């Protein structure tokens, strides 16, 4: 990465693997489970979180020296809530169809612990540019997990990807369905999301032994 120093590029690359918000930091789980039944929803959510974390980290970093410590949490929450509400209103006015898909997620973004977690852990103590990178990096790390989970859940659960039938038509019995394959409807139900994430963790920690816990 020519633009960024080695330290800075670490801010973006780390959360994609060794410091992943979902699988290592244990943040942002709720939404990862709730909306990943469709790949499209995972992608929309990732883009929204990218925006909120990028802008949010910048704002908090800018005002970090004037926030009174007693109401720190409330200030952070207010910033996120205000950002998300404004995004929602702007979308409703200029991209109405998209906003309808997003309104389900609005509440989930505000309470997404990743956003608050990174404000606390990074933006409050670092400069604006680095906070921005940290926000983007963590949002991407979050997004990768969401997309992997969404990919498997939609593929195995409905036989579609982004709404397009990729395995054949289940009612007319073409493609893979001609051999007796049936969609695993179970994958669409939330408990399977938990198990898929568990499996992702398994793979991740097998490849990087340093992440293994003691018990």
């Amino acid at each position, binding site marked *: 990465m020519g633009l960024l120093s080695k330290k800075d590029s670490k801010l973006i690359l780390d959360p994609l693997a060794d410091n992943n918000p979902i699988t290592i930091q244990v943040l942002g789980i709720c939404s990862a489970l*709730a*909306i990943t*039944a*469709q790949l*499209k*929803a995972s992608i929309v959510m990732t883009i929204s979180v990218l925006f909120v974390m990028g802008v949010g980290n910048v704002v908090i970093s800018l005002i970090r*020296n*004037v*926030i*009174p*410590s*007693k*109401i720190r949490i*409330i*200030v952070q929450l*207010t910033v996120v809530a*205000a950002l998300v*509400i*404004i995004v929602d*209103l*702007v979308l*409703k*006015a*200029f991209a*109405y169809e998209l906003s309808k898909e997003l*309104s*389900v997620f609005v509440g989930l973004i505000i309470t997404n612990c990743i956003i608050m977690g990174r404000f606390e852990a990074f933006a409050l103590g670092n400069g604006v540019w680095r906070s921005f990178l940290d926000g983007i990096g963590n949002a991407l790390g979050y997004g990768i997990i969401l997309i992997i989970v969404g990919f498997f*859940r*939609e593929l195995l*659960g*409905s036989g579609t990807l982004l*709404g397009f039938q990729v395995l054949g038509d289940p*009612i007319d019995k073409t493609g893979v369905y001609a051999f007796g394959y049936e969609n695993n*409807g179970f994958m*669409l*139900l939330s408990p399977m999301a938990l198990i898929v994430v568990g499996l992702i963790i398994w793979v991740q920690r097998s490849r990087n032994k340093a992440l293994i816990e003691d018990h």
Partner: protein
Amino acid sequence: MEKRTEKNSYTVFFAIIMVIVVGALLAFTASALKERIAENKRIEKQQNILYAMGVNENEGNKANFVSKDKVGESFQKYITNQLIIQEGNESQDDNAYLIDIKKEQESAKSGNARRLPLFIGEKEGKKFYIAPIRGKGLWDAIWAYVAMDENMVVQGAYFDHKGETPGLGANIKERFFMDDFIGEHLMSNGTFKGITVSKSNGDPKNEDKTDNEVDAIAGSTITGDGVTAMIRNELKLYVPYFKNLKN
């Protein structure tokens, strides 16, 4: 000396400033965009009503509405009349489609007579009667526009929801579900039966149109039950009107 940001007076001062700034920002954004948002909602209603009666730009298996710039014209062209039915009396109102069904349902709960909007459309010589209905899904509200002929046989339907699960309950907006309703009978032997979203339908391609049933969506039982209840409770209110039509 205590750091400036630790003092209580500063905390209160900051809090007040923050409330004012955020409050002003949100209020400003909300009011600046209010009209555009209201206009978008109005256009959406028109698109939904036209969709239910088959005026749309469907491609492949995706649902596509008449585009925003053409919808005003199409609405004027295809919707010939708008009625409000209240306690058996009909009145005409060109803004009947703007009536908020949620408010009507709440008002009816406190004992007022329910106002029932009905939109009459015409396409290629055929007459459509479109009713707006509203109900409860698993998480939040669901609503629909159901187009019928004079025998209360469904000609088309559009469903929507506020917060159902993507991939599950949210699929009531997909064509594979909505198209199933086309041709379904609401009446059976002169009595109103509605349409039941059923798991034991045994008819996945929905070829039997007089069974008063439609195939359910796997994993969305409660949303499906909500659709069934909504159709039954709301469309039943229109039965007297259709009976009068026959006479």
